């Protein structure tokens, strides 16, 4: 029985070897096996984190952490990225831009950005720093 199945498989491979080579070639070009493995071992969140970084660039990880720990009810935040990147807010479907600037996240804020910060006229006396990691800061307005 098993020998029969094995023989049939060998026959299929023999009669379709040119197609198989073609498929394998295409699979290697598109990294099929690597991508399949990534999907098996990495969660969606991990893949997003690896793509958009924790604190740096779009800083997906840091924003997610702030959202889960500090923005439990009021899912509004104003994000200022000191490096040139597209908006990070749209990566989170339930996050809205806080036009009142009650919750403010600074991303990629380094010493060299002090001039940019001055230009923004951000009044730090009205805010309290709730979290800081590397170049990422989360400020909340004092009520």
């Amino acid at each position, binding site marked *: 029985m098993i020998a029969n199945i094995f023989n049939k498989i060998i026959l299929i491979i023999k009669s*379709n070897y*040119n*197609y198989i080579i*073609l*498929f394998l*070639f*295409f*699979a290697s*070009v*598109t*990294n*099929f096996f*690597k*991508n*399949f493995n*990534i*999907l*098996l071992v990495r969660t*969606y969140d991990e*893949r*997003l984190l690896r*793509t*958009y970084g924790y604190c740096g660039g*779009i800083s997906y990880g840091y924003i997610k952490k702030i959202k889960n720990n500090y923005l439990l009810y009021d899912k509004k935040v104003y994000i200022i990225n000191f490096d040139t990147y*597209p*908006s990070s807010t*749209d*990566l989170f*479907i339930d996050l809205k831009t806080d036009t009142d600037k009650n919750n403010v996240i600074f991303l990629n804020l380094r010493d060299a950005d002090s001039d940019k910060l001055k230009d923004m006229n951000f009044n730090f006396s009205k805010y309290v720093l709730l979290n800081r990691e590397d170049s990422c800061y989360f400020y909340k307005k004092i009520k």
Partner: protein
Amino acid sequence: MTEILQIFFQLFIFFLFTFFPINKFTFSKILFVYIDSNYNSFLINIILILNIFLLFSFFEFNLNYIFIGLLFINLSLLFFNFTNIIKDIFSKKNAHLKFAFIFICFCFFFKTAANLELGWDALSYWLSKTNNFYNNKSIFEMPHPASPQLGSYIWGFFWKNSFMQKEYLGRLFIDYLYLISIFVTADSLKKQSNFKKLIFIFCLILFTFDYNNTLSGYQDYLLFILLVFCSKTLLELNTKSNSSRILTAYFLLIMTTILLPWVKNEGIFYSIFIMIVYFFIDHQLLSKKFLFLFIVAINILVRLFFVKVILATDNIFQFSFTPDVIFANIFNIKELIYRIYYISFYLIRSMFQYPLILINFISIFFLFRYFKYLNNNKIFFIFLFLNLLFIYGTYVVTVSPLVWHLQTSMSRLLLQTCGFYIFLIVDLVNKNIIKI
């Protein structure tokens, strides 16, 4: 593993939404002339569903209800024709191509799922528009209203209507449409073995595929797909086949051309080009030509009116043109030569990024050797001429820094239209001018 199962399920959903309602099992008597091939059924259904999506995008309908409604219709049709469809799927006819399609779909789907990075424009514009539709908000609340909504609506629709509701699941539909368009092209090759067709398919994919620049949330492939469909229907109209087949192709061409301006702003120009090309097709009634002109004109006017008046946007296009700037660039010979030089340089550079563009150009010049075929393929020449005019015109008058503008957009602009010329290669192969 759950995500992989979800991807399998998503492929089944895409198949349901694009193989039904019109195929050889359901409407065999009405549209028999055009749905002799399964790929033609896919083409018709895709154009149909994209038009339905376009229509629904103007209203604040819940995406789940639309999905359930369409799913119910398609599942019913599947149920009533289940035995025949299953027999057809598992028949040995074209088995290699069927397997290849599923396999390539998974190659693309896994690639999209594993690499979640969205392109710059996708993050800046398209994702926020998609979020709007995902949250069942109306088109009037849509951010960046100057950019059209169709691509974002499709993305949001399939994202919302997936079990796991992950962003990339919506984008997979664009991958799927892209592959269908490639297979539709290969299906038009006559008297070729399945193995040769497969090599042709792999070459087309390898010559146009660039994940980072296009499949990462950009809308350019959608234009590519629609222009492939336009090209196929135009070629159909250009040949002397039976009248009902021509009538079907005519309506398909109208429906596809309607979609173009709602995908990206460039689509406005492409729809005008298609209209002009149609005017040059022989043995078509003048009334048909004027009806087409009327529909395209109305469609563009509706799009402009919608953006300018209803959504009250300042600029319809990415940048505003002022007569001063246009004349300053055109009448300043030094500036004009400088611009034409850079445009030509980046045009050639893009050909090496997407080799299909290079092959298209070669096949067009190749045609000059065979003058007797020139008249039959004039649609490609006219489109190429208009396309080059558009490319040079855009970059000559652009107010953005020229080199930056060319670096960021030229290759994608060429990719959008390179699908149109694939049928020239197909036609040359079918006429035995090129042998594969």
